[in-house]
C-alpha cells in the first residue's frame, strides 16, 4: 500500500494568516487545508495520511489549547504546532506537556515553521507506522483461541513445553502443536520475536 501524501491542517481565525501559512506549506509540496476554527476542524473530514496541525492558540469560541485537550481525550493523536501572538510560560509548558511539537510566536519565521511541520509529519508518520504495526499484531493475536492464548502466555513467561503441559494438564505433544499454531498465526519467526510482540501489545494496553 502506497502511503498517502502528508496533510497539514492550518487553523487560525485570521484569514490572511491561515491563507499565508497554507500557501507557504503548499509551496514546499505538502498538502495544506486551511480552517477558520476548532469546530470546523472537528467537523472536517480528515484524510487518512500523515498529518499535523498548525494551530492558533487564541481563537474565538474554542481556543487552540482546548482543542488539543479535546483531541487528546478523544484519542486522536495528531502532532500540533502552536502559533501565538503572545505566549506565556505556563501556557507553553502545558501545551508541550500535552504533546505539542513546537510552540512558535507570531510573526512566525518560515524556516522554523517548515522545520516544525517536517518534524511533526515525520513524528506522525512514525506514530502511524507504529500504530499500524500494533494493529496488525493485535489482529493476529486476536485470531488465537483461548487455549492457544494460555499456551502463549506460558511460553512467553519462559516455561518449557513440559512444564506447560503439566500446568495445563495435557500432554507435551499437544502443547507443541498449540505452540506451533501460535507461532504460525502471529507470524513470529522466533521465540524472541514472539516475546517482543507480546511486550509491545502489553505496553500499548497499559497505556
Amino acid at each position, binding site marked *: 500500500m502506497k502511503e498517502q501524501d502528508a496533510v497539514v491542517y492550518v487553523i487560525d481565525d485570521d484569514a*490572511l494568516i491561515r*491563507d499565508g501559512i497554507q500557501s507557504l506549506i503548499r509551496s514546499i509540496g505538502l498538502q495544506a487545508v486551511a480552517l477558520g476554527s476548532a469546530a470546523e476542524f472537528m467537523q472536517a473530514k480528515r484524510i487518512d495520511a500523515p498529518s499535523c496541525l498548525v494551530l492558533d492558540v487564541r481563537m474565538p469560541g474554542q481556543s487552540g489549547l482546548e482543542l488539543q485537550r479535546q483531541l487528546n481525550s478523544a484519542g486522536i493523536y495528531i502532532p500540533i504546532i502552536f502559533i501565538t501572538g503572545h505566549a506565556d510560560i505556563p501556557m507553553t509548558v502545558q501545551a508541550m506537556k500535552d504533546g505539542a511539537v513546537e510552540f512558535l510566536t507570531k510573526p512566525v519565521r518560515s524556516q522554523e515553521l517548515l522545520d516544525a511541520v517536517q518534524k511533526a509529519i515525520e513524528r506522525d508518520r512514525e506514530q502511524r507506522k507504529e500504530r499500524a504495526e500494533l494493529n496488525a499484531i493485535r489482529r493476529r493475536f486476536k485470531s488465537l483461541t483461548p487455549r492457544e492464548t494460555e499456551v502463549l502466555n506460558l511460553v512467553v513467561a519462559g516455561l518449557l513445553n513440559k512444564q506447560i503441559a503439566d500446568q495445563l494438564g495435557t500432554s507435551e505433544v499437544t502443547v507443541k502443536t498449540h505452540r506451533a499454531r501460535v507461532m504460525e498465526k502471529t507470524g513470529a519467526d522466533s521465540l524472541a520475536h514472539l516475546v517482543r510482540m507480546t511486550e509491545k501489545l502489553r505496553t500499548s494496553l497499559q497505556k
Partner: protein
Amino acid sequence: MELARTSRRKLSAILRYGSAVGFVAAALCLSLALRASFGNPAWFFFPAAVIATTWIGGRVAGGVAVLLSTLAVQYYFIPPVGFRINEHDLPYFLVFIVCEVLANWIISWRKEAEDAIREARDLLEVRVAERTAELKDANEALRNQMDEQRRTQEALQLARSELARVVRITTIGETTASIAHEVNQPLAAVVANADACVAWLSLNEPNLAEARAAADRAVQGATRASEVIARIRSMINKKPPERAPIQLNPVIEETCILAASQAEKNSVAIFTELDPNLPCVTADRIQLQQVLLNLVINGIDAMAGVTDRPRELRIRTRVQDSHDVLVSVEDTGIGVNAESMSRLFEPFFTTRAQGVGMGLPISRSIIEAHGGRLWAESILGRGSIFQFVLQSSEAGQG
C-alpha cells in the same frame, strides 16, 4: 471730612470778624474823605459795608458791622461830633439803624439759604460719587466673580475631558495586550504571506499565480496594520469633541476589531446583529467608540468566570420609535446583583480588582451629553444587557 470742616470754621471766624472791621473802617474812611464833595455819603457806604460783611461773614459778623457802623455814624456824621445826638436827627438815625438791621437780616437769610443749597448740592455730589464708587466696586466684584466662574467652568470642562481621556487611555491600557495583538496579527500575516511569495518564486518553475496571491495578501495585511495604528492613534489623540452625523454600525465593527483579541483571550465569541437601514446619529465618533469599547470590554470581563454556558457577546442595533437608534450589548456573564445594580453608574464603583470604576459613569455622561439615555438590565447568573438610545440626525434637525 469733619476735620476739614472744623479748620474751615476757625479760619472763617477770623475772616468774618476781620471783614466786619475792615469794611466798616473802609466805609468810614471813604465817607470822611468824600464828605466835602458828596454831601453825606455815609448813608450809602455803611449799609454797603454791612451788606458786604453779612454776605462774606454771615449774620453775626453782619451784626458786628451794624454795631460798628452805627457807632461810627453816630460819632462822626450826626452833628455834633461825639456821642451826643440832636433830637430832630433821632428818627433818621433810627431809620438808618433799622435799614442796616434789615439789610443784615435779609442778606444773611439769602446767604444762609444759598449756603444750604450749596451744601446740599455738595453733599449730593459726594453721595453720588460715593454711590458711584460703591456701584463701581460692586460691578468690579461681580465681573471678577463672573470671570472666576467662567474660569472654573473652563477648568471643569477641561478636567472632565481630561478625565474622559484618562479613562479612555485606561481602557486602552487594559487592552494593551489586545492592541499589541491587533498590530502583531496583520504583521504576522504580512510575514507569512511574503515568505510564501518568496517560496513560490524560488521554485525551479516559479508559480507566479500563487506568488501574486500571497503578495496580495501581504499587502492586505500591511494595510490592516496601518489602519489599526491609525485607529489607536485617533483614540489616544487629545482632540476636542466634534459632532458630526455618523453611522453607528461601522463604529461598532471597529470596536469589535479593537476588542477582538481580548475576546479571543477569554474565549468569547462576539456576534453582531446590525440593522443595515440604521439612520445616522449626530455624535462625537471617538466618544461613542469609547462608550462601545467600554461596554464590550465590561461584557467580556463579566464572562471570565463562566464555564457552564457559551460565552457570547451580542451587539445589536435597531431603529426605535421610527427616529431613535437603539444599541444593545448583551453578555452571558455572571450578571449583576440588585445592590451593585443600584450603584453601577456611581463613580469609582467597581467589581473588578483593577477597575477604575469610571467607565460606566463616563459612558453614561457621554450618552447623556448627546441627548440620549444609557441603562442596564441584568439577570443574576444569566447575563446583563446594556442599552443606549440616541436620536437620529434627521429627528434632531426636525
